[in-house]
């Protein structure tokens, strides 16, 4: 190894290292400067989504900081733990926003958040549904997205009881929900997912509100927001 080579190597190595450290340092500085603000923004985003499915006036807790992690492959469509945000009024559980997955969309999974309240035992009311993420065919299945069509608002204030269960289907299958022209699968999947999540809520109402809070840390709540972000594109 010649001297020239040693010199070049050392010089290049050091310069590169200095630049790496400086740029990384700058990023670190910016990160420090912005992290609180970013966390705040994300909470607000989450809150706005949760407020879209649960009426703001119906609860008084920091809903986005109060959640349980629930898993039900059968009813919530995923093996992964999903967030369930709990709305309480004066310590009493009044409603919940459940993240759920419809596994049988036309082009894969559809992620939803469903706001549910249960005014009386055995019956539940859907307070709102929002699609967080989907890959449905543009122009056909994507009408489940609120920005494309307000079909999803059709779930608002629908009551579910065991008797009414058969109505929770698309019209083609004899239910009460519209399908879109040319596409039955997507709405069928969404309706089914909402229905199952309501069933889950009814079945687990008691345990949900007693579970430990899994959303103490600010950072862990960003999942919904992230999904929502993606979907915005």
């Amino acid at each position, binding site marked *: 190894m010649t001297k020239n080579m040693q010199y070049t190597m050392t010089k290049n190595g050091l310069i590169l290292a200095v630049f790496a450290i400086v740029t990384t340092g700058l990023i670190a500085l910016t990160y420090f400067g912005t992290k609180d603000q970013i966390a705040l923004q994300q909470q607000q985003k989450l809150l706005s989504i949760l407020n879209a499915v649960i009426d703001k006036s119906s609860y008084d807790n920091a809903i986005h900081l109060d959640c349980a992690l629930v898993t039900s492959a059968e009813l919530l469509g995923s093996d992964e733990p999903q967030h369930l945000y709990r709305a309480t009024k004066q310590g009493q559980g009044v409603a919940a926003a459940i993240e759920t997955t419809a596994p*049988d969309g036309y082009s894969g999974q559809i992620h939803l958040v469903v706001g549910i309240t249960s005014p009386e035992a055995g019956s539940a009311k859907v307070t709102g549904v929002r699609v967080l993420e989907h890959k449905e065919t543009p*122009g056909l299945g994507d009408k489940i997205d609120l920005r494309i069509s307000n079909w999803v608002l059709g779930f608002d204030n629908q009551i579910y009881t065991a008797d009414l269960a058969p109505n929770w289907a698309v019209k083609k299958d004899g239910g009460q929900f519209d399908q879109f*022209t040319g*596409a039955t*699968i997507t709405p069928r999947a969404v309706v089914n997912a909402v229905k199952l999540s309501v069933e889950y809520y009814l079945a687990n109402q008691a345990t949900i509100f007693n579970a430990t809070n899994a959303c103490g840390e600010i950072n862990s709540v960003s999942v919904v927001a992230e999904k929502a972000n993606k979907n915005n594109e």
Partner: protein
Amino acid sequence: MKFRLASSPHQHIRRDTGQVMRLVILAMIPGVLLQTWFFGWGTVIQIGLAIITAVVTEAAILELRKRDFERALKDYSAVLTAMLLAVSIPPFAPWWVIVIGTFFAIGIVKQLYGGLGFNVFNPAMAAYVMLLVSFPVQMTQWIPPVNLAQYSHNFMDALNAVFTGFSVEGFSLAQLKTGIDGVTMATPLDTVKTGLAQGFTYSETIERPIFDSVISGLGVASSWISLGYLLGGLYLLKQKVINWHIPLSMIAGLFICSLIMSLVDSDLYPSSLFHLFNGSIIIGAFFIATDPVSASTTNKGRIIFGAAIGVWVYLIREWGGYPDAVAFAVLIMNMAVPLIDYYTRPRTYGHSSSKRKSKDKAQS
């Protein structure tokens, strides 16, 4: 005395491009007749609209490109493209669908690439895919076969439906699309796919009430139409307008794939025959994939090209987003044609094949 000077050969086989195209158009007639028989006048109206649009577009663009359009129109290639596109779309699709599609086929896919002989993609199929992607609702709504439709329709009804969306008596398109049992139409392929998606097996799906007489009727119609095109395709083979390589390898590709899979699990995977005679396999194999401009040009290449289309059709039908897949498969393989052609160059007389490879290497 001035003598004529020309380059040899002085003799010429008496078959020009126009003749070839006219033969292909001729061969389409049985299929088109059957399609009209089953689905009514809509098909004819679509073909008429498509031909007019194609000719006007071609003439206008050639004029813009300052080329001799009269001569170019005489080769009938635009008419053929128009017909292929027209028979692929639902008979009662609104008029603007076929107009946009034909314009796209001729104006963009064919002429923007340089006109006849220069288009990389099959114009009819590229336009079909464009329409399917852009207007999925209009493009997936087939009407029931005439004998099974809830409301019968004549030529004027069809004309009205295509242009206004309503028949003369005021039935809406949606009504016309409804079968006698009141179920809106979907093709068997579609239905099976939906059924499978819902977790039913293949056999369950075709036995479910939803797979009723209308849909199976549609399947029957589809099979008959396929037979019509098969007849035309055989005529083309006999006339040596097309070679056997592409149709045979394409059908074989699909047949073998579907056979293997249905042997593996006949509950989930439909039989080979179901695949072959549903959708546009036959017309695709004989009329679309064989389009010389966008297909492979070597014999070995044609076999690869055709077989790959067959495999793609199967893959897309089974695991893709759209129920039928001929158009996508053809387009995918169109892209691969230069590559196929390059690697399937026949061994030239007096050359050993290994020599060529080493030469290639040396050049690279």
